[in-house]
């Protein structure tokens, strides 16, 4: 069938399966229908709920402004789908074009979208993770459990990890007068995402709001009492913190386990795809019927040296889902690249933190507007003589300007005058990111055979 005819047939009566019924999956489904896809659409999700929004779970819900059961996403349009909720996908047969489900069913597809996202990384010591009072926060069920416990007036909440989620949880606790300790391996909160200069501001923010912040320490163990309730956390500096609620905020793990052995280029760092959201198989060959979107995807970005970026960002999930959906039902000449400029936000301790671009690529930062001491500023990150990212604390209206600067590859340091430039912002300083040479957990691929005709790739899945 010629390509044009094939796509007409696909739009008319093809079968599209979306694995992952959260933000990216929903927005992709809506885009498919908006662009005239009239075939069958199946939405598969491991959680038994209609698509819901996650950011409120660590913000409005913990602040008591929203119920954890009711963050369902509004619909842009009717998607007329068959929903398979509460059933996880457990396998993929690329050759037969079928998704295997946990209940034994198999769902055939002509086009597949994988949007399985990430899950919270649990406390690595399983027995301690099982203690009553130890939580993670990612899903609606997690939020219901944590919310209930916080309402029961705990004596102290102990947060492990001062990334964005951990900081937001600490902020919500302080807002409600709950004593909270935060332990962070780095020298300050948010250091991995925004560097040490900004991390120092975040640390002050924690302390000024009454958080018992402990940096440069690791949690060595969680201690339970005789009935299995958590009682204390032990730290690497020898100190012990008594607590009755522990929230583990150690980042996320990509939901790719179900693809092990499928032949897709999927591993702990996500599923590699091209700029058009088509998944690579493990040989590095792009597929034409499997697409990826959202937190689980890794795709090359031309603005950032074609690096494969994995973005756990709300806006990325939406934008990438729209591109993936469009490309799924379009012939190659009509396809579009996903070139969204990374952007995210966080609110904590009453401060609105936003970022644009990829701060962690920056090696220098300059405060082009406002001042760190006032906690109202814009910081611009530079990399190899150009602006690569910007961060704002309570200064969001300027970010759009810097977004254009990033897109244009504007020079760094910023020489032109800016509104509210202070003496401290005249010169760039090191952005102070931690050493990126952390252990990697990537899968390994080895070559065997000696002549081109008998060379084989062997894929060794990583140990999680």
């Amino acid at each position, binding site marked *: 069938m010629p390509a044009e005819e094939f796509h007409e047939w696909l*739009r008319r009566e093809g079968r599209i399966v979306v694995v992952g019924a959260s933000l990216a999956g929903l927005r992709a489904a809506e*885009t498919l229908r*908006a*662009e*005239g896809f009239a075939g069958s659409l199946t939405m598969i999700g491991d959680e038994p709920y209609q698509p819901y*929004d996650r*950011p*409120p779970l660590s*913000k*409005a819900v913990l*602040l008591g*402004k*929203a*119920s954890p059961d*009711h*963050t*369902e*996403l*509004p*619909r*842009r*349009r009717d998607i007329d789908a068959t929903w398979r909720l509460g059933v996880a996908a457990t396998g993929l047969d690329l050759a037969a074009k079928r998704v295997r489900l946990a209940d034994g069913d198999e769902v055939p597809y002509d086009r597949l979208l994988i949007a399985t996202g990430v899950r919270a990384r649990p406390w690595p010591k399983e027995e301690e993770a099982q203690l009553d009072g130890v939580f993670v926060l990612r899903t609606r069920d997690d939020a219901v459990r944590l919310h209930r416990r916080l309402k029961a007036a705990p004596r102290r909440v102990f947060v492990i990890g001062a990334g964005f989620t951990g900081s937001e949880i600490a902020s919500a606790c302080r807002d409600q007068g709950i004593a909270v300790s935060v332990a962070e391996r780095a020298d300050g909160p948010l250091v991995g995402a925004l560097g040490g200069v900004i991390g120092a501001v975040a640390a002050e923010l924690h302390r000024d709001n009454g958080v018992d912040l402990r940096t440069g320490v690791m949690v060595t163990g969680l201690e339970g009492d005789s009935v299995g309730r958590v009682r204390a956390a032990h730290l690497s500096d020898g100190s012990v913190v008594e607590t009755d609620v522990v929230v583990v905020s150690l980042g996320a793990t990509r939901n790719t386990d179900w693809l092990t052995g499928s032949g897709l280029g999927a591993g702990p760092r996500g599923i590699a795809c091209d700029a058009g959201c088509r998944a690579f198989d493990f040989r590095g060959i792009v597929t034409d019927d499997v697409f990826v979107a959202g937190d689980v995807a890794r795709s090359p970005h031309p603005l950032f040296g074609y690096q494969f970026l994995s973005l756990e960002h*709300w*806006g990325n999930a*939406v*934008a990438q889902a*729209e591109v993936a*959906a*469009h490309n799924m039902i*379009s012939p190659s000449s*009509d396809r579009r690249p996903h070139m969204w400029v990374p*952007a*995210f*936000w966080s*609110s904590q*301790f*009453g*401060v*609105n933190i*936003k970022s644009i671009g990829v701060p962690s690529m920056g090696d220098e930062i300059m405060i082009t507007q406002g001042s760190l001491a006032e906690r*109202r500023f814009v910081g611009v990150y530079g990399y190899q003589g150009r602006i690569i990212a910007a961060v704002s604390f*309570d200064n*969001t*209206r300027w970010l759009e300007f810097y977004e254009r600067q990033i897109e244009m590859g504007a020079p760094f340091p910023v020489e032109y005058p800016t509104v509210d430039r202070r003496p401290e912002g005249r010169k760039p300083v090191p952005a102070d990111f931690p050493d990126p040479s952390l252990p990697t957990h990537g899968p390994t691929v080895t070559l065997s055979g000696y002549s081109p005709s008998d060379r084989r790739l062997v894929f060794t899945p990583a140990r999680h």
Partner: protein
Amino acid sequence: MPMRLVVDLNKCQGYAQCAFLAPDVFTMHGEETLVYSPWADEEQREKVARAVAACPVQAITADGLDGAGDRSTGAAQGASDAR
């Protein structure tokens, strides 16, 4: 039936029009941080509709209030319409 709503907080610039027009649903927390309830009662519909319309950066999506343009978008137009 209650309304589901979501605010694109990448777009939101803290103009606080929504917090003025539908204060039971949208509140400002600090100088420019918006905190909102993703689930609003039916009696809030009129106020939420005004907030959706008044948002200077059109960051609010609510059930049955926005996207009228999307809804009427045909297949042919869809490709150029999707963002």
